[in-house]
């Protein structure tokens, strides 16, 4: 598959995935741009894989997790309150106690597991491959994240039964 074909088909999905991981439009765009630039350089190898999307999605995940570790870029907001495109998707003052606020404050690994499991619909085995960890670790992250988010145990049990 050529790089242009891949991005034509998968760029919106990658941007959505990065958006859910980072919770921030600009970071999502930067994440995907950085990863695709590196992917383009070695596309000869990636394009020959059976699942290039899975590989690039793993690159995005790793990049997101390493960003959380090394990049906390302080930004100074402009006094102009509403600049189009800059409205925070996750306002952290009003929603501090609701689900979205709690989700935003989850550790990166736990957030990644939830996005992969409940948005990308991956199995725990596939998530373990994507994150480069063991299945037990994935389940541990998911369990702690769901507890933090106060997800009803009954809905989890139903979900688990169907997985």
């Amino acid at each position: 598959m050529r790089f242009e074909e891949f991005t034509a088909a998968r760029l919106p999905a990658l941007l959505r995935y990065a958006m859910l991981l980072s919770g921030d439009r600009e970071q999502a765009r930067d994440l995907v741009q950085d990863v695709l630039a590196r992917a383009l350089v070695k596309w000869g190898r990636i394009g020959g894989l059976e699942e290039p999307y899975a590989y690039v999605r793993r690159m995005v995940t790793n990049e997101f997790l390493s960003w959380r570790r090394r990049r906390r870029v302080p930004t100074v907001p402009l006094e102009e309150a509403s600049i189009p495109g800059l409205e925070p998707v996750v306002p952290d003052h009003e929603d501090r106690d609701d689900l979205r606020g709690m989700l935003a404050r989850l550790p990166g690994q736990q957030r990644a597991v939830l996005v992969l499991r409940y948005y990308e619909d991956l199995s725990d085995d596939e998530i373990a491959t994507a994150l480069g960890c063991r299945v037990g670790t994935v389940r541990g992250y998911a369990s702690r994240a769901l507890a933090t988010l106060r997800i009803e145990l009954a809905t989890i049990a139903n979900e688990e039964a169907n997985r």
Partner: protein
Amino acid sequence: MNTLDDLRRIFDEDASAAPDPVGVMAAVEQGATRIRRRRRAAVATCAAVLVAAVAVAVPVITQRHRADGPAPATVQIERGPHQVTLGVDGQSGYAVTSQASYENLQRILFRNATESKRFIASAIAYDPSSGFDPSLLRRGERIDLSGHEAWYVGNYPFGGYMMEGHRNSLDIPAVGWRDPTGTWILVFEMPNFDYREDPEDPDRARLLRDAQAVRIEAMHEMTAPISLGPLPTGIPPVSTASSDRRTQATVLLGGKPSPLDAAWAWGPTKGTAVMIEARPDGPNTKIPAKATRVAPVAGYPAWFTKETSGTALGNGSLWVRAHGCTITFSAWDRDLATAKQVREIAEATTYADCDNTATWGPIIRP
């Protein structure tokens, strides 16, 4: 308590707020180019070390090359768009008044106080990687220029965009040669008046004097009254220019002008994400009436306009006043740069005195 359906609903809502793919691919290609360039630079550095080792080990061969005249170098250390090698001999009486650097091209304007003010001498250096085609030049008259081979062409066709103030292409005299580094240099004189309405006999002797003053020097950083600090990811410097004239510094971030020569318009082109200009305070640097005073930038007074200076497609302009300079940071393309990123760039910039070149620093801080 929450449910998994609540979680999925939030995921769906947030996913729908994902950024628009427009502009992403341009930034991806720029990023890939940057990565490849870094790799090439690493390879070139290794090769340069190897070449140096060979040159030391086999001095006889090196000496023989010298005896035969300078051989074009096969290894070119990568030059950043904020670095320059093109200049003039400091003992020649000429001085550089403007310089610009872009990917694999450089240009200078230079003057000799004793020469005609009706022309501005200009030199362009095409790095070996630029793919400069010398065939047109080589069809000209072969001459000896200070002991090295050069060509004189009486009517070299320069595009109008290379002639400030001249819309149309001009066929004017030019001298060109290949430097030992492999760099092709073209020298010509830009008429400081409407050439077609007031033709002046080209002065071949003066043009040759201009050309003799031009040098390829050791690579050094371009200096300007602003020094940009760390830049946001995906918005690399693409073109820089510095001058002792009205606009003392111009920096273009992001984008890849095409064709290559578009850089010589000294202005933004398709794909430019951010344009930064520094001018000495004066009648042309009034803060727009619509501008809103915003929090100081790096301690200097600042204003913001939602309208981007010079384009309808931007995300706004930030104006900073510092040390007798007015600096405009414009988010030139709303798909490629946000007002927030522009603010970050301005905050990371250091500001010097526009009227005192001794205070100027590297246009991009290493």
